[in-house]
């Protein structure tokens, strides 16, 4: 049923860190088209650092990150901009620009990177907000809406330009279980509708199993990836006690005991 896998992001032997302090080393994984790729791991294992490097905010100490077989950090400024244009990013706290209404927040990428007219942009913004369940709420300011709405508005901004790759940083953090579930469904719908590839940073187990079909497990102690693959497969087959402990909320499986 599955067509041949087309790699979208390839991380090759990347070391990440701040100055002399190495956070992650020898990171290798591949994200294929249409994947929902989960980056998981305990707090402080370098998930956010990895995300920063994936979205072009922080260059790796060594190694390559390839998007559609183009090495991001070897491109010049315009090449990078070209790659960045295909990203949609949902930041952990929303990161909506607080001086603009949520409608204007969604409209800004469209104003900057398309030649659409004012009314066309308005229609498109209305549509994107409708997709995330916020239709008719264009004129609200980010400070005046709930955390869940802020996440949705931020997602609408992330998908404003029909990105090919969507990065989600802790999408369900701060949401109640019902809304977190709805948000997961929304992510699946959008992935299917837009044909995008999704990279999710999270440690919400429910989300991990609900949406992920591929993933990487970061470990804080060895500072590298200790497992990759479908989270459900990892749960069933991993023999690494750290992975199993994480995926079962601390209940260790019998096989991994000495």
């Amino acid at each position: 049923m599955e067509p041949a896998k087309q790699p979208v992001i390839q991380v090759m032997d990347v070391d990440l860190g701040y100055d002399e302090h190495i956070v992650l080393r020898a990171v290798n994984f591949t994200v294929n088209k249409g994947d929902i790729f989960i980056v998981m791991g305990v707090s402080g294992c370098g998930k956010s650092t990895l995300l920063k490097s994936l979205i072009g905010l922080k260059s790796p100490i060594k190694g390559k990150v390839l998007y559609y077989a183009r090495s991001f950090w070897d491109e010049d400024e315009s090449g990078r901009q070209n790659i960045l244009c295909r990203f949609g990013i949902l930041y952990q706290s929303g990161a909506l620009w607080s001086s603009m209404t949520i409608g204007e927040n969604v409209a800004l990428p469209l104003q900057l990177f398309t030649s659409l007219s004012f009314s066309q942009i308005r229609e498109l913004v209305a549509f994107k907000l409708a997709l995330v369940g916020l239709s008719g709420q264009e004129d609200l300011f980010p400070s005046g809406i709930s955390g869940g709405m802020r996440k949705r508005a931020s997602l609408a901004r992330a998908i404003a330009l029909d990105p090919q790759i969507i990065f989600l940083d802790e999408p369900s953090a701060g949401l109640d279980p019902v809304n977190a579930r709805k948000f997961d469904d929304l992510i699946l719908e959008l992935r299917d509708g837009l044909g995008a590839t999704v990279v999710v940073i999270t440690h919400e187990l429910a989300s991990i199993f609900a949406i992920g079909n591929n993933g990487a497990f970061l470990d804080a102690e060895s500072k590298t990836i200790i497992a990759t693959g479908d989270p459900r497969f990892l749960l069933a087959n991993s023999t690494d006690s750290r992975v199993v402990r994480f995926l079962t909320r601390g209940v260790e499986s019998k096989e991994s005991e000495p």
Partner: protein
Amino acid sequence: MISEKLVFDYLNPGKLFVKLRGDWRIATGILSINTVTSCLASHPDIVQINLTAAQDLKWDSGLVSFLHQLIRKCESMNIPVDRSGLPETAQRLLALASKAHKGGIAPAKNHETFLERVGVGLLQEYESVRNGFEFLGDVVVSFGRLVIGKLYFRRDDFIFLVRRCGIDTFLLVSLIGFLVGMILAFVASIQLRMFGAQIYISDIVGIAMVRVLSAVMTGIIVSGRIGASFAAELGMMQTNEEIDALRTLGVSPVEFLVIPRVLALFLMMPILTIYADISGVLGGLVISIGMLHLNFAEYLNHTQQAVKVSYIWIGLVHSLAFAVIIAVSGCWHGMKCERSSVGVASATMSAVVTGITGIVIATAVITFICQTLGI
């Protein structure tokens, strides 16, 4: 009727077949739904629309946005739209958008009249003044607790604040005082030289600086420097819910945050003002000696005679009043800051505006009182 991207087909009576073809991606622009609606208007017998996609259709959310509008429009005209000929993923997105659309809350659009806006503005202004006085009351009550020794704040915080208010501002205040003294001497000399009364420059500089000017100049600098920093700091704390965290701990933020700031400024403002007095007189001296060839000792002697001790007290009263105004307005605007970056910006701005306005008003009041009392 054929356009580049839309093909209309009226073969079946009552049904309109719309074929979508070509490049519909956002980069090529979005078609207006008017082409379709005008076609509906010219064929009033149409009771259903069937959408189909051609083989060469290239699309992204630009197309879906167009269809979303079209379907909403048709629904309002009671014309059903058959979407089964569309790509499956597009159908999904449309379903998602319209599902959410039904659940969405209609926006509360309110167009206020001019009078309403004025009224709301006035009420807000009234509320804000009331809040200001309430806050001032809070500060006074907390001061009472400070006096009876029931108030807790961290000593390190206080020492840091004193340093920031005093030592870090000292150079700037000295410089401005010196320059104002020079300017005063220079302007006064233009007139006084005509009468050969240059020596009275020392009186003018001394009295003006000591009585009011150095306090006002210091106040304005401190308002811009310290008042603004108080507002931005407390505003950011309010945004981060740090102030709520204090409240839930049972610590009054006024006691823990505001009182040390007011106290620090209350201590340092008089000292800064005295420094400004001295540097102002020095500035006058430099001009008098350098340009008007007055005698050093003579100038100082004259200044000493002109400036009474009571003038120094008046200057200090000014500076103490300003300290309270600046610190309270900075803290007040910071604490009622809205939780956004714009909120912090407007809190900082309001703090400086309120501070400087307060300084000018206080100067007028104190001057009037001094005049009435004859000092």
